[in-house]
């Protein structure tokens, strides 16, 4: 089961790959060549000047030191690391789609049509009435949704100051509410890991603008009381916000709109398999009920009856904009292609297999899973072991480990989300990696990993003495 991962370090060097700057920099005298007067220009510019072959080798070497979903299992809980279908890249690379956002509507009908159709797809999948594609990431979608809630309350003359968020929610929820200017009321988890209705009733009141809820929640549990939860929030005059991070579990089997949610975001780089690109770009479209549609960001796209086909328009009470232009366009094209490829049955099957895989893997591993029944992800506990150490040891067995030490309701949590793309044998390998690491001796855990490009990295040192550029390294 031991697995070498790109450990190509030369023993006589203390780096895995030299920096571009170490391969040779050049300095250009800017003023010598510039058509501009000296007081408007910089004196010089010093940057690496590698040849194209050197560039190709540098980045190829770097890529070989990087784990990806195409390398093997990547079961990061709450991240939904699915296979990214290759053909979507080709669809998005169409040069005809590469146009400027300031084109008049009549000159950009093709893009507007795809935007319109994708809005419709997403509305159908979420059970929502209207959708904006503008937010460039999930957190941006959250902010958009909460700003819509705020605009709604202000429009109705309600001054509400609080957003209620379960303790187990993603950190972005809390940060989003604060960015929108709300106070956060944290809701403790019930004993069964779900929202406690009594605690919710106590937390919700005249000041509640919204409850932000992830369903299934961050340990994979469906909030069975969702109808009652919606009632409590709505009776208090608040809105119900759906965090779409875990939507993959519900595809075709439940829709936020049918559960009483008023506003939601979609993480297309999770649920709809657009590549995450090492940290982005993603996209975080937002869906709302009819009642909230007039507050959506501007512009939206609608069909016209005339010959024009599609047009952009500003919703009556629009919150304005959340991205300078139309959001992460290339990602949105890939989203459309993925949803169209799967269709109704494919989407439902994705959820079914994601849930099957999580349950099978949990059954196969020796670690205990305290909460259930879970859906697409589960939080195992490393018990007396340090979850972060177990994760590091898993790297030596050829898999990416789960999310560790979160959510906090599970001690030494290993939040695991295999997604639908792993088959039985792959899950068996993953289970073996879990069990080997979990059962290993303390010393092996503390010194792991040993088979990766870099050995265990000193994170404390990195933060204590921040060196964030090659210039800072040269000063050292």
């Amino acid at each position, binding site marked *: 089961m031991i697995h070498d991962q790109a450990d190509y370090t030369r023993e006589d060097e203390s780096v895995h790959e030299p*920096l571009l700057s170490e391969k040779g920099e050049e300095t250009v005298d800017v003023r010598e060549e510039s058509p501009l007067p000296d007081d*408007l*220009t*910089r*004196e010089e*510019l*010093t*940057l690496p*000047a590698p040849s194209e072959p050197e560039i190709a080798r540098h980045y*190829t070497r770097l890529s070989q030191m*990087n*784990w*990806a979903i195409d390398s093997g299992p990547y079961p990061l809980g709450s991240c939904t690391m*699915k296979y990214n279908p290759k053909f979507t890249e080709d669809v998005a690379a169409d040069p*005809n789609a590469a146009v*400027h956002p300031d084109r008049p509507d009549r000159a950009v*009908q093709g893009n507007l049509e*795809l935007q319109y159709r994708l809005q419709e797809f997403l509305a159908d999948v979420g059970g929502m009435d209207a959708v904006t594609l503008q937010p460039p*990431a*999930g957190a941006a979608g959250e*902010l958009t949704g909460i700003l819509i809630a705020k605009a709604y309350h202000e429009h109705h003359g309600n001054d509400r100051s609080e957003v209620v968020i379960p303790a187990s929610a*993603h950190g*972005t929820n809390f*940060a*989003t509410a604060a960015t929108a*200017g709300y106070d956060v009321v944290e809701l403790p988890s019930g004993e069964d890991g779900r929202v406690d209705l009594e605690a919710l009733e106590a937390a919700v009141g005249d000041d509640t603008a919204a409850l932000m809820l992830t369903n299934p929640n961050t340990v994979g549990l*469906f909030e069975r009381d969702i109808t009652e939860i919606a009632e409590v929030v709505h009776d208090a005059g608040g809105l119900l916000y759906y965090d779409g991070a875990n939507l993959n579990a519900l595809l075709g089997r439940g829709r936020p709109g049918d559960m009483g949610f008023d506003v939601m975001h979609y993480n297309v780089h999770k649920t709809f398999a657009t590549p*995450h*690109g*090492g*940290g982005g770009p993603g996209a975080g479209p937002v869906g709302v009920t009819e009642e909230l549609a007039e507050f959506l960001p501007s512009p939206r796209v609608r069909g016209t009856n005339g010959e024009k086909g599609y047009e952009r328009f500003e919703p009556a009470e629009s919150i*304005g904009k*959340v*991205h*300078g232009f*139309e*959001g992460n366009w290339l*990602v949105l094209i890939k989203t*459309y292609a993925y949803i*169209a*490829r*799967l*269709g109704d049955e494919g*989407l439902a099957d994705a959820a079914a*297999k994601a849930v*099957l895989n999580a349950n099978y893997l949990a*059954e196969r591993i020796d670690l205990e899973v305290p909460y259930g029944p879970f859906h697409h992800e589960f939080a195992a506990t490393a018990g007396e072991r340090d979850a972060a150490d177990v*994760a*590091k040891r898993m790297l030596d067995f050829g898999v990416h480990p789960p*999310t560790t030490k979160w959510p906090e309701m599970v001690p030494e949590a290993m939040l695991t989300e295999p997604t639908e793309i792993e*088959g039985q044998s792959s899950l068996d390998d993953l289970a073996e990696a879990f069990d080997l690491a979990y059962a290993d001796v303390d010393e092996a855990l503390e010194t792991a*990993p040993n088979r990766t*490009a*870099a*050995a265990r*990295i000193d994170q404390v*040192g990195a*933060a204590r003495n921040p060196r964030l*550029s090659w*210039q800072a390294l040269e000063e050292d």
Partner: protein
Amino acid sequence: MSGSPYAPHTDAETAAMLETIGVESEESLFDIPEAVAFDGEFGIDARTERGIRDECARMFARNDDATEFLGRGHYSHYVPSVVDHLSDRAEFLTSYTQYQPEISQGFLQALFEYQSMLVELTGLPIANCSMYDAATALSEAATLADRVRSTTGDVVLVPGHLREGKRAVLENYCAGADLTVEAYSMDDGIADVDALADRVGDDVVMVYAENPTLRGCIEENLDAIGEVADDNDALFTLGSDVVALSVLEEPASAGVDVVVGEAGALGLPTSYGMGLGVFACREEHLRQVPGRLVGASEDAEGDRAFTLTLQTREQHIRKERATSNICTNQAWVALRAAIHAAWLGPDGLVDLANDCVRDAAALADRIDDLSGAAAPVHDRHHFREFTVRTDQPAAAVADDLEETGFLVHVVGEHLLQVCVTDHNAGRADDLVAAFGEVI
């Protein structure tokens, strides 16, 4: 077709897995009450790969075949093939955020190098590994100003010429921090420093300027704006882009505290406004920076290694006290911009930027020679773009140009804006000829 083409399970495997779990069916694994369950009928028909490629190609072919002389915040330069081929390597494209640095050294180093390039371009010691775009980066600068400035003020001053969409985004972020956005006037395409100086006071937390300005003018008063901001303890934030920064006055030496703007001018072709937000700042604001930072460290064998660092600023640890809610950013676009910058090298970058000055001046001169048009409107140096005053209504001129296959911006009743880069410079002759015919 039934089922997802990307789930590998055979029926036999599914049955075996269900048996291991101890349930009868996939359905029984779902704990969704009947009242809120959905029957799965979205009405979306599955298509084949080939079918979708054809469908989307047909859709995109409905975009007019026009040559764009458009800019105003979204710029296009030739992106060399090496950028696509290397950034499309699946090890980069299909990876996640680098939570396990030991098997993510490649992307971390690439982002560290990107940060370093921005440090050189801005002269500021700290650069993060990306924001969504210029508008959101500017917005995060405003909330940073609110956190770091001791003044009791709540006003963010922005140029009179500011892209409407950018201002709309800024206002959304400002509202949550109880900040208000106010514009200062312009003087022939650049900042009116006297008016700015008159306006700035205790109530101002941030002064924002752009170089080049929205009208494409190169700002001549950066140092003076910096002094005005500094005298009033306001944060001085500058918006620019990576190509312009290659030749224009270095922000740090003009007293700039934060640089925001677009790095997508490198690495990204025209992409309907998709961006790559720059965020660079002074050392003293390090712990208030939004977004991800990659730092150098050592591994257990004493080798240099890279890792995400100072994460206690971020939402997954600090929650509502985080510096921002951002997590997913534009990392892959940053990788592309870095490859593009490496390919150009400093010589190539400076040449590209100088062409942005020369080509804009040359095209403006040729349009100015036509009767019925005057360009550039502002008596300034320009970068990439400039405005044109037309005797006829600008909208009518733009419509006529569109008929002949050229797109330009309408920015006033008798005002057009034209942007020229290596992307469209080859069609400049044709644009001038078209202008000559329609005016």
